């Protein structure tokens, strides 16, 4: 059953998780930790999107909307109630609640119709929420977003372990302070949510979803209620996205339209899922890691390359860091043409032939 390609993919995913687990000790600067936390969050977000697009074959553009509900839920309560665990938990619950209401409403209204209608309706819903979030500035802080304090445990000044002098203990040169606790909060939440999803797609329910993707009419004929299953998976994916939003809000200590709701995040998620490989949870991990690393480091590299090429006509212009989304778009189109299964899917299939 397990071929070489699958083994390679799974090993690299486990390796990625191991690297993320030890990230604070391996890469000891602020920016790397930021990147690592973002990767953790996006793995969950992309994997939950993969439940929809890869496993069930429905295209939703409202995924950032649910992410935003979770983030704003925590952010608004942390702002009004002050730092603590109650607002985080209440915020998470509120976010999930609102997300579920929206998911059920959209699902029942539009999952009966064609995939394309659903895509358009979710796009419209998400853009309305985005506009509302930037207009209702008394509640959401408008375009500026909300800045607030995280629970005390996660403050950089918090000492997890102190030595005899009352100073923070250093382990391999890393201070055991609140920042580290915050990172591990993000990491373990992400890991737990990812494992839940992994368990879920292996369950009988997950198998039914794949059956619906492959042949809807047949699944219906066998006796599965397609609309109910689709709505259920839409709700599940919305719940997980919303929880990921809450975790991200606690980590960033800032929530605004750009970090939680914007259409750019939706495009990122879409790119990650397609690059990594649809229909495999593993692909979500690979896609998220590659895209975020590219976002943070490739642009610098392109800038350096562009400067190195000054004097040669056209090349510096083409390699300018601003052009990076252009190239990404082209790579994306080529990938959809030639490797519709993405990196993970292609690697797994490649092993099968050999």
């Amino acid at each position, binding site marked *: 059953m397990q071929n070489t390609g699958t083994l390679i993919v799974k090993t690299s995913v486990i390796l990625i998780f191991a690297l993320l687990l030890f990230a604070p000790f391996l890469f000891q600067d602020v920016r790397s930790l930021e990147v690592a936390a973002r990767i953790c969050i996006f793995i969950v977000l992309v994997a939950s999107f993969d439940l929809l697009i890869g496993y069930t074959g429905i*295209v939703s553009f409202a995924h950032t909307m649910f992410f935003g509900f979770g983030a704003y839920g925590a952010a608004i309560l942390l702002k009004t109630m002050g730092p603590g665990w109650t607002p985080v938990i209440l915020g998470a619950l509120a976010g999930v609640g609102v997300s579920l209401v929206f998911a059920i409403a959209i699902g029942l209204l539009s999952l009966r119709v064609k995939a394309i209608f659903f895509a358009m309706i979710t796009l419209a819903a998400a853009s309305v929420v985005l506009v509302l979030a930037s207009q209702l500035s008394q509640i959401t802080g408008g375009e500026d977003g909300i800045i607030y304090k995280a629970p005390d445990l996660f403050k950089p000044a918090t000492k997890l372990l102190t030595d005899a002098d009352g100073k923070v203990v250093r382990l391999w040169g890393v201070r055991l302070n609140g920042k580290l606790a915050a990172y591990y909060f993000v990491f373990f939440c992400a890991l737990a949510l990812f494992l839940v999803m992994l368990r879920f797609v292996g369950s009988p329910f997950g198998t039914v979803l794949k059956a619906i993707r492959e042949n809807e009419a047949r699944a219906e004929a066998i006796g599965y209620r397609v609309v109910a299953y689709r709505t259920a998976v839409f709700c599940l994916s919305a719940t997980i996205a919303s929880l990921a939003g809450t975790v991200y809000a606690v980590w960033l200590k800032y929530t605004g339209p750009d970090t939680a709701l914007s259409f750019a995040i939706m495009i990122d998620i879409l790119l990650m899922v397609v690059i990594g490989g649809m229909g495999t949870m593993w692909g979500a991990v690979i896609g998220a890691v590659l895209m975020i690393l590219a976002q943070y480091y490739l642009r610098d590299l392109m800038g350096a390359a562009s400067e190195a090429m000054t004097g040669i006509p056209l090349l510096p212009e083409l390699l300018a860091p601003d*052009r990076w989304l252009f190239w990404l778009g082209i790579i994306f189109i080529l990938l959809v043409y030639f490797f519709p299964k993405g990196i993970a899917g292609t690697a797994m299939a490649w092993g099968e032939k050999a």
Partner: protein
Amino acid sequence: MTALTTTLGRAGGVNLLPLAVALIAFVLIGAPSSWVTLTVAGLAMGMMLFLMASGLSLVFGLMDVLNFGHSAFVSFGAFVSASVLAGLGGWLAADSWALNALALAASYLAAILFGLIAGWFFETVIIRPVYRDHLRQILITIGAMIVAEQTILAFWGGTPYSVGRPAFLEGSWIIGDVSIEIYRAFAFALGVAVFVMLYLVLNRTRIGLLIRAGVEDREMVEALGFRVDRLFIGVFMLGSALAALGGAMWAGYETLITPHMGADLMIVVFIVVIIGGLGSIEGTLLGALLVGLMSNYVGFLAPKLALASNMILMVAILLWRPNGLRPAVK
């Protein structure tokens, strides 16, 4: 009740909806002069939206292809026409009415030509390989939209680009205490002209007959020996050209344009297409007018709800008629 329904149906049925919206708004707004101004603005916006949406709707009806990159044509149309107008700045600034009109016509022609060529390229290179695969269609056209938006960004930069407007379209007519912006009236008239032309082509010519038959039942038309795929390229090019023209007119209407304008308008265009029902230009016109009027009235009555109102309208209509008001596709 049934008698009422039949009377309504005979009087025009769902076609009366924009009228009903206008009447309700008249009562709510109270002041006739602002109502007239808003109505003209709504009708003008509706006609521009119609231009952008008609191609999308026909393309979907004929070939079951939904182009999420349609907004690229709108943006490109706007920027191409704005550049032509900037290039013909001399004509635009000239004191002669004829030269002004010529510059405007040239800019629209450039947008239409660009739309035709870009549409042909888009259809053959991007969409042809993914017929009948909705998921990959959505993904690929999204990718194409990203590339197109970035291309505009590379050529014209990210700062808002200002668009020239010929002098004879500036200002407004004042009738009593009602003021009507000339550009809006012009946009409305041009939109109506295009609609009439489209309607005549679709209903009075042989090509139009084939297009309508293809929307209804493509396999049957193909079985009778017609090449629907060739027809489809033509419709796609026409739709792209109309979207580019719509973008060009929208650019003159807004006078400041950014590379994101297409993506922003796209949401409204989708709502129009969904409300109207896919595949019919009459439905698209109805949806466009409804959305145009609705956003102007609500924008006046409760500014914060402007975009949400379109969404609510869409939900209400989908609950009432799940396939839109006048669908041609079953």
